[in-house]
């Protein structure tokens, strides 16, 4: 086992850390309050190379391995306080870029990947429906094939990046009798006839990441926009989800590390009863717990990414990684607020926002309960 980064990896990670700290932390409180997506920061990330991290170089990416990729995203989360922006970037990477990299035709990759890498295009996927969330494959969105066009019908909800997306990977059932094997994936561009992103959905946290309902009514998609094989949608979705579960909380590990540093600083500076509050064992104990959570989360994340890079089975590890880090993140945020006392509850201290942002991690990409089901079934239960 080698726990050391190479000089090249260190150089890349330091560059990400500097970029995230210096270029992305403006208007975060206001954007959170108003629910504004920071387009400019998105483009900066694209120009810098974040969205294209693991995309092969021939399509405009950097071609980094999974371990370097998650470490870069961790640094991004450590430096950048806009968790919503990072969530949008994650949705873009795991639900639009990954399916294209693995299942896209050469023409589809050439057409979309360079723009998705450099920040000119925003991607996402549409899978959740009003009555189909955890049971994702019970999809009611259907698609009717009609010569050279496909017509997805009905409504999909909770589409991350929906209001701003240029390209959505849409899942729809072509043949209901075949169950999951009847689901196909399609690339649907913004302004396709019959596709409408509805109202922006108001949320508790991740407010800078826009989310919408998307309606398909007599929508037309050219048949060459089928992504992967017909009926291959469920497999494609599972692969995309496995990547997402393993990687989506890399930036959360960085966020936890930042919270830990903030709390240590505050506990040393804040004096009560003639001493730093960090000298009170109940405060120190909370900070030690935070440290343990950051370290255990980081180790699970790196182990998952190492397995992924070595083409080992990662289905179980992806779920465990997601489950563990989301739990740790929420607890770290609660402790960070408690350590800051009343100040932690105030918006300007930027701790309460972290908790609002973190709670969603127990819901998206499969709830914690679904992750536990997966782990249990993989353990033979």
């Amino acid at each position: 086992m080698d726990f050391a980064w190479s000089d090249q990896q260190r150089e890349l990670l330091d560059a990400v850390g500097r970029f995230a700290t210096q270029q992305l932390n403006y208007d975060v409180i206001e954007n959170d309050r108003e629910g504004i997506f920071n387009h400019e920061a998105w483009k900066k990330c694209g120009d810098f190379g974040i969205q294209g991290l693991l995309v092969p170089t021939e399509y405009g990416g950097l071609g980094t391995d999974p371990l370097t990729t998650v470490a870069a995203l961790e640094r991004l989360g450590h430096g950048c306080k806009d968790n919503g922006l990072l969530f949008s970037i994650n949705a873009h990477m795991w639900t639009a870029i990954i399916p294209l990299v693995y299942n896209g035709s050469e023409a589809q990759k050439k057409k979309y990947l360079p723009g998705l890498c450099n920040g000119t295009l925003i991607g996402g996927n549409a899978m959740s429906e009003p009555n189909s969330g955890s049971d994702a494959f019970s999809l009611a969105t259907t698609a009717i094939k009609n010569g050279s066009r496909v017509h997805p019908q009905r409504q999909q909800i909770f589409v991350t990046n929906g209001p701003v997306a240029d390209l959505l990977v849409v899942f729809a059932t072509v043949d209901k009798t075949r169950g999951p094997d009847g689901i196909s994936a399609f690339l649907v561009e913004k302004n396709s006839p019959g596709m409408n992103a509805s109202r922006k959905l108001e949320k508790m946290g991740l407010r800078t990441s826009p989310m919408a309902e998307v309606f398909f009514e007599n929508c037309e998609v050219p048949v060459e926009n089928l992504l992967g094989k017909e009926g291959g949608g469920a497999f494609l979705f599972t692969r995309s989800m496995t990547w997402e579960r393993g990687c989506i909380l890399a930036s959360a590990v960085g966020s936890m590390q930042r919270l830990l540093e903030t709390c240590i600083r505050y506990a040393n500076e804040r004096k009560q009863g003639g001493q730093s509050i960090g000298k009170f064992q109940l405060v120190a104990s909370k900070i030690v717990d935070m440290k343990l959570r950051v370290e255990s989360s980081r180790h699970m994340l790196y182990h998952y990414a190492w397995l992924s890079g070595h083409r080992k089975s990662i289905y179980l590890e992806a779920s465990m990684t997601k489950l563990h880090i989301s739990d740790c993140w929420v607890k770290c945020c609660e402790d960070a607020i408690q350590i800051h006392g009343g100040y932690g509850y105030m918006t300007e201290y930027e701790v309460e926002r972290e908790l609002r942002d973190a709670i969603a991690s127990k819901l998206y990409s499969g709830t914690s309960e679904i992750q536990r089901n997966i782990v249990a079934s993989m353990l033979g239960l």
Partner: protein
Amino acid sequence: MKILVPFKSVPDPNDATVAGAAVSTPKSVINPFDEIAIEEALRIRERGEVSEVVGATIGPPAVDEQIRAALAMGVDRAIRIDDSRALDPYAVARILGALVEKEAPHVVIMGKQAVDDDSNQVGQMLAGLLGWPQATFVSKIEFLDKTRVRCTRETDAGLEVVEVNLPAIITTDLRLNEPRYVSLPGLMKARRKPIEILTCDQLGINVRPLTTVLSVARPPKRAAGTRVESVEELITKLKQEAKVL
């Protein structure tokens, strides 16, 4: 056409650990004024007015990190003069003079000063040694043709516009441009770009610093001010205590 951009590694002026820390090893960065010079050279190349930008620095292997940062910004190739001594401006100007004769650039663009010692001498000395025209503290550069450059200089009296014949030395001021951010693709590309290592012997010169730094100290802490009750009291204090009137 070719631009040579000499640059210096300096302690990061934005590194918070430097200020007030008892023990610190500040990170090194490219001198911010030199970074502006690199940016300008790259913009000139991108406009098609020159074809190559060559970076050069003097120092031990540790400064290769700043060289890679320059290459990552887009500099085509770089030269490091291997010398770990604490050199003074005249020694630096002589080494750069020898390098200019070897590389034969059409323009040398460099920072007006380095933020560590703020000497503001190398550009001027280099122009003197080479017998080239110079434009210092420049906030705007326009190539008129292949032989003349118009430079806007920032002076205490205002903006001064000068035209210099090439080859020339130009030193950059703060408002010339805002340097680009090093991107990850840039960093990846930089690894494949060559860094040439030269010594003073290979350049055929023998330099030694003419000055010695005896010590470096912080400026004395400013004493707290006082509030005066009236204009009369202020005048009296200015006369009797400050002795400025």
